């Protein structure tokens, strides 16, 4: 009831505020004033509904928080999706279905759809890579796209000058990115939070500026064209076949990335990363080498960006510095944050939402940034842990005195 009253007040206030804009229309050429009274109704109804929904959601969130404080309910409890994933058979069925869908995708949809899907998969890998640095180790990286650029330019340049093929450069691009990760990591070992963010932001900028201005090396803003597509034993492929082929490579790389990052997360190293995110001082006091842990987080996060950068260059066959702007870093970071920090499935879902939505909603592309921002704000208020929370590893233990407790 209180909500209704407050929403009504908000609606009236908005009607008053927007009155000169929405209702009065002065036609200067004919010296006429037009009164569009119907707009009052729409503004009023719209704000009333939005305000009511907003209040209702906030109240629900508060109620849940109270319940959690009283210990009745887990605040960040498993949603329906997490429950499905926790069940082994359901999970396997779900994964199997997903795999089948992924495999038949290029045969059921046209080349345009496949191309969009490839770019979504590229962002999935980028998100998973950044997830190591930001989601697990808690090191905010605003210049992640730099590693992507390293990989892409590694392939473009090696291909241009030495004619090296895609499969040769794929690991090289990744390792080169790793190296850059370590180079970036060393000077910022001591930095935290805001300072770290600013330095990584600068690193991203530096790479872009270097690529734009060092023309002898990178061909400047005009970029590098005619990069070879990945080959398959010298088979000649038309554009459709090549796209399908790249799509399958992307799928394979995604599976590889998911496999490796899952194993890393559930290992001794992954635990050290999470501990580092939680409390740096306690972490070193427990005997974890901070320098090594941070550097490994940077290097292993960068690896995926470099690897997928090679794929990106091979897919587009043309790259220039304009593909590696801060905007890209921001999108990759949004993927990680929206999807759920540290959650591998969440990041995958986040990448699909953030990359595919703008593609299919081209009609509203002017409002893309507006929707992005609004989605971020709403997420932070109502589901700060991301779409899918991190699914915890289960441990089996016997313990002393024949006690068998499983959680």
């Amino acid at each position: 009831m209180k909500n209704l009253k407050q929403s009504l007040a908000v609606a009236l206030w908005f009607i008053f505020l927007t009155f000169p804009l929405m209702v009065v229309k002065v036609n200067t050429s004919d010296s006429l004033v037009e009164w569009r009274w119907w707009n009052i109704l729409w503004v009023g109804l719209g704000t009333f509904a939005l305000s009511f929904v907003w209040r209702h959601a906030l109240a629900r969130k508060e109620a849940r928080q109270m319940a959690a404080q009283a210990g009745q309910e887990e605040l960040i409890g498993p949603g329906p999706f997490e429950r499905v994933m926790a069940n082994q058979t359901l999970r396997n069925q779900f994964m199997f279905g997903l795999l089948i869908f992924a495999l038949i995708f290029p045969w059921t949809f046209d080349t345009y759809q496949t191309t969009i899907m490839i770019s979504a998969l590229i962002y999935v890998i980028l998100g998973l890579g950044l997830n190591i640095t930001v989601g697990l180790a808690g090191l905010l990286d605003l210049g992640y796209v730099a590693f992507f650029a390293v990989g892409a330019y590694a392939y473009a340049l090696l291909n241009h000058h030495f004619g090296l093929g895609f499969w040769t450069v794929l690991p090289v691009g990744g390792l080169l990115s790793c190296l850059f990760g370590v180079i970036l990591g060393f000077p910022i070992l001591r930095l935290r939070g805001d300072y770290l963010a600013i330095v990584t932001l600068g690193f991203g900028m530096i790479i872009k500026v270097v690529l734009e201005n060092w023309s002898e090396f990178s061909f400047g803003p005009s970029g590098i064209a005619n990069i070879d597509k990945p080959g398959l034993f010298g088979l000649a492929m038309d554009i459709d076949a090549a796209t399908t082929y790249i799509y399958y490579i992307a799928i394979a790389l995604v599976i590889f990335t998911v496999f490796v990052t899952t194993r890393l997360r559930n290992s001794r190293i992954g635990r050290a990363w999470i501990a580092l995110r939680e409390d740096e001082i306690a972490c070193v006091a427990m005997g974890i080498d901070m320098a090594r842990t941070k550097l490994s987080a940077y290097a292993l996060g960068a690896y995926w960006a470099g690897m997928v950068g090679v794929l990106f260059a091979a897919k587009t066959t043309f790259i220039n510095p304009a593909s590696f702007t801060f905007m890209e870093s921001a999108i990759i970071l949004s993927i990680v944050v929206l999807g759920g920090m540290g959650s591998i499935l969440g990041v995958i879902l986040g990448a699909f939402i953030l990359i595919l939505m703008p593609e299919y909603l081209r009609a509203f592309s002017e409002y893309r940034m507006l929707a992005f921002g609004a989605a971020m704000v709403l997420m932070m208020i109502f589901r700060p842990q991301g779409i899918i929370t991190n699914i915890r590893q289960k441990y089996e233990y016997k313990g002393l005195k024949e006690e068998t407790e499983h959680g």
Partner: protein
Amino acid sequence: MAEKHKLLEVNQLTMDFGGLRAVDGVTLQVCEGEIAALIGPNGAGKTTFFNCVTGIYAPTRGDILLHPKGLKTRRLNGLKPNRVTEMGLARTFQNIRLFSDMTVLENVMIGRTCRTQAGIFRSILRTKATRIEEQEIVETSYQLLQKVGLGPFANEFAKNLPYGAQRRLEIARALATEPFLLLLDEPAAGMNPQETADLDHLICRISADDRIAILLIEHDMKLVMNISNPIFVMEYGKKIAEGSPQQIKDNPQVIEAYLGEETDA
């Protein structure tokens, strides 16, 4: 006491923060099998002393020497905290520093990190050796949890534990690093009398069963007088007394330091 093996020897330790001398020429030793206590009014420099010993601060002057049994003496000055822990000196924190978004079991497993080896490639390939090592980490950690009475909470998030249990979890986590000397910073702070009694028992058990020497900072005088010997007293960064509980109780300087404190409080 003279014939006992000294584990930790601190000589004339001084720590300056700008113009402030937080620790001023403190000398103390902890020997094998001892439960030593470091007491003193608030702001006496006890925690700073701990931070110097465990490598969080690099002391301005003085020596911190660690004599592990059967190994050669190491000077700890300026070593990184993780190296100090690797040498066998673990600690807990006054203001609890658990990894709050990790489970209780995972918190203890972190303590095992410095005693295990699995690197990046072994973790990715998950070789047999790695799997065995992982299982060893889980088992050892769980047994430590049982030891401090937290077995049933293994899969809770650390932040959801009650206060007293969080303190015991910190002890379990420190024990997981296999120390021979354990530094406890106010382990009984914020505990009720029952919890304090349990803690008293736990500390004695750690000392007796695992043969781990303990140095603790504590304000709970009942606990200190019960279990520790020797006791060191600090005030304004200086050590003003040391000795057995009885000697400390009768020491006029100590009484003055504490009564002076009470008029402020």
